[in-house]
């Protein structure tokens, strides 16, 4: 045994007690050994992915001996594995402070600091996780779920984020998704208390799962009963040669059992590992898909906004073009009017869309219309009437067709208040009747009767209408 205190390095007295700190060296050694034992246990369970168990053991190990560098470094590594990078850094920095040289914590810290992008990503994941907690506080679980999905895509091992997401899904009664998330947690940390508790709760609610569980329990019970009921047989006298043969058979059976127990678990283990890897891969792909979907949705929103903006601009251009066209037609009409070509002026004026004119232009439009339209309508009516008279007896088709064209022009420019409005309908109807265009004639006679009930042509119109309908 050393003559120096293992804790403070001072001299020991004859009873192996430190003269400075007063610690008994054998007690201190026992404490250190227990700490090492706990570290070994922690390492073993960590290898089996029981990370919660490992954290508990390593924390106890460090409570016994804070200078247990291996325990501290492993604790940091496990924190890193479950996505808690700041806690990991905390352990490694303390470890490096205790033992400056030949310390693997140095390598871990260096590795993290070297990849600034990764560190930023992880920190962003932590911030988003904290933000998700705030959202839940504000009763915005839907926003929290979106945030947590982002957290997981940034840091796919962040166990706390998975557990919180699973809780949100359970709250939303989305048990299938919660279950998937919890299986992911358990693939990272086998004995995560929160995940196990939620998983147990979900499966107890699922009737199919419960049935399966009951079946398993029933089989177990049956086997148990069977094993209890099975009693040893009484010994009997056996021939020695038969006994030798029996030993050979027994040896073969043992050999087979050894082969089965040694080979099959290996195969099962490798298959389980394969399944775990596949599950991990599926979850990663799903997360990638969710992230992609989020970004596509946001792109879609941006594009929609852009499109709305462009449509608005296009609409403004269309309005301006329509205004311009209306103004241009009005200008042409004015030009024709000034040249005393009233027919051309009237036709131009007719195509002007007055709703696209400004108030000043509209005034000019109305004035011009009042000036030209009545003249145009009256002239066309007079000319049409003249041709009708010439063409009706004997029937001269050419005259009647020309008369119809004039009547149409007159209708175009006439107003319903014009004194010849009913005459116009009557003569046009008569032209059509004489030309054999019965449908047009019927429509026009009917229109006259409906719109001008006091017209002097009403009786004639009724008579002709009856003739045409019969």
């Amino acid at each position, binding site marked *: 045994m050393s003559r120096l205190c293992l*804790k403070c390095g001072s001299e020991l007295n004859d009873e192996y007690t430190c003269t400075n700190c007063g610690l008994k060296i054998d007690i201190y050694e026992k404490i250190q050994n227990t700490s090492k034992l706990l570290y070994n246990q922690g390492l073993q369970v960590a290898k089996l992915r029981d990370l919660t168990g490992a954290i508990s053991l390593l924390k106890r190990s*460090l409570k016994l001996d804070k200078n247990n560098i291996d325990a501290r470094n492993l604790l940091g590594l496990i924190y890193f594995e479950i996505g808690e990078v700041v806690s990991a850094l905390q352990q490694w920095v303390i470890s490096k402070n205790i033992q400056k040289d030949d310390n693997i914590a140095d390598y871990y810290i260096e590795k993290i600091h070297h990849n600034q992008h990764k560190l930023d990503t992880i920190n962003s994941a932590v911030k988003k996780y904290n933000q998700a907690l705030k959202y839940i506080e504000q009763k915005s679980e839907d926003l929290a779920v979106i945030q947590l999905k982002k957290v997981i895509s940034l840091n796919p091992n962040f166990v*706390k984020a998975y*557990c919180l997401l699973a809780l949100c899904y359970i709250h939303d009664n989305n048990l299938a998704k919660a279950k998937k998330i919890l299986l992911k947690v358990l693939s990272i940390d086998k004995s995560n208390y929160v995940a196990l508790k939620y998983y147990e709760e979900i499966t107890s609610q699922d009737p199919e799962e419960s049935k399966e569980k009951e079946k398993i329990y029933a089989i177990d019970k049956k086997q148990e009963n069977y094993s209890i009921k099975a009693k040893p047989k009484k010994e009997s006298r056996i021939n020695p040669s038969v006994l030798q043969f029996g030993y050979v058979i027994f040896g073969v059976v043992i050999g087979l059992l050894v082969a089965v127990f040694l080979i099959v678990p290996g195969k099962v283990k490798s298959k389980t590992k394969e399944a775990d890897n596949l599950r991990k891969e599926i979850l990663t792909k799903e997360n990638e898909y969710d992230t992609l979907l989020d970004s596509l949705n946001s792109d879609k929103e941006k594009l929609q906004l852009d499109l709305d903006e462009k449509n608005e601009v296009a609409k403004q251009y269309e309005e301006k073009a329509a205004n311009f066209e209306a103004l241009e037609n009005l200008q042409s009409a004015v030009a024709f009017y000034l040249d005393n070509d009233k027919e051309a002026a009237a036709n131009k004026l007719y195509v002007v869309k007055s709703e696209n004119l400004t108030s000043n232009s509209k005034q000019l439009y109305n004035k011009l219309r009042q000036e030209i339209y009545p003249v145009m309508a009256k002239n066309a009516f007079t000319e049409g009437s003249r041709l009708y008279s010439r063409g009706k007896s004997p029937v001269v088709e050419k005259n009647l067709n020309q008369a119809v064209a004039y009547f149409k022009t007159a209708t175009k420019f006439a107003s319903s208040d014009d004194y010849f409005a009913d005459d116009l309908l009557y003569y046009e109807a008569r032209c059509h009747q004489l030309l054999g265009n019965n449908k047009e004639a019927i429509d026009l006679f009917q229109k006259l009767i409906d719109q001008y009930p006091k017209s002097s042509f009403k009786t004639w119109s009724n008579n002709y209408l009856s003739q045409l309908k019969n």
Partner: protein
Amino acid sequence: MINFEEEIKRFKPCLEIEQAEESIYAYDSKDVSDILQEMIREIKNDDK
């Protein structure tokens, strides 16, 4: 049945990188031998 309100209380905010330094200084690294030393010191003081 899981009580959402109760469960959510168990989730605490995680430390961010900016808080790492502060958390290292605040870390309680006292172990059993430190506690034993304190006890021995107290006993010695009482004897005096």
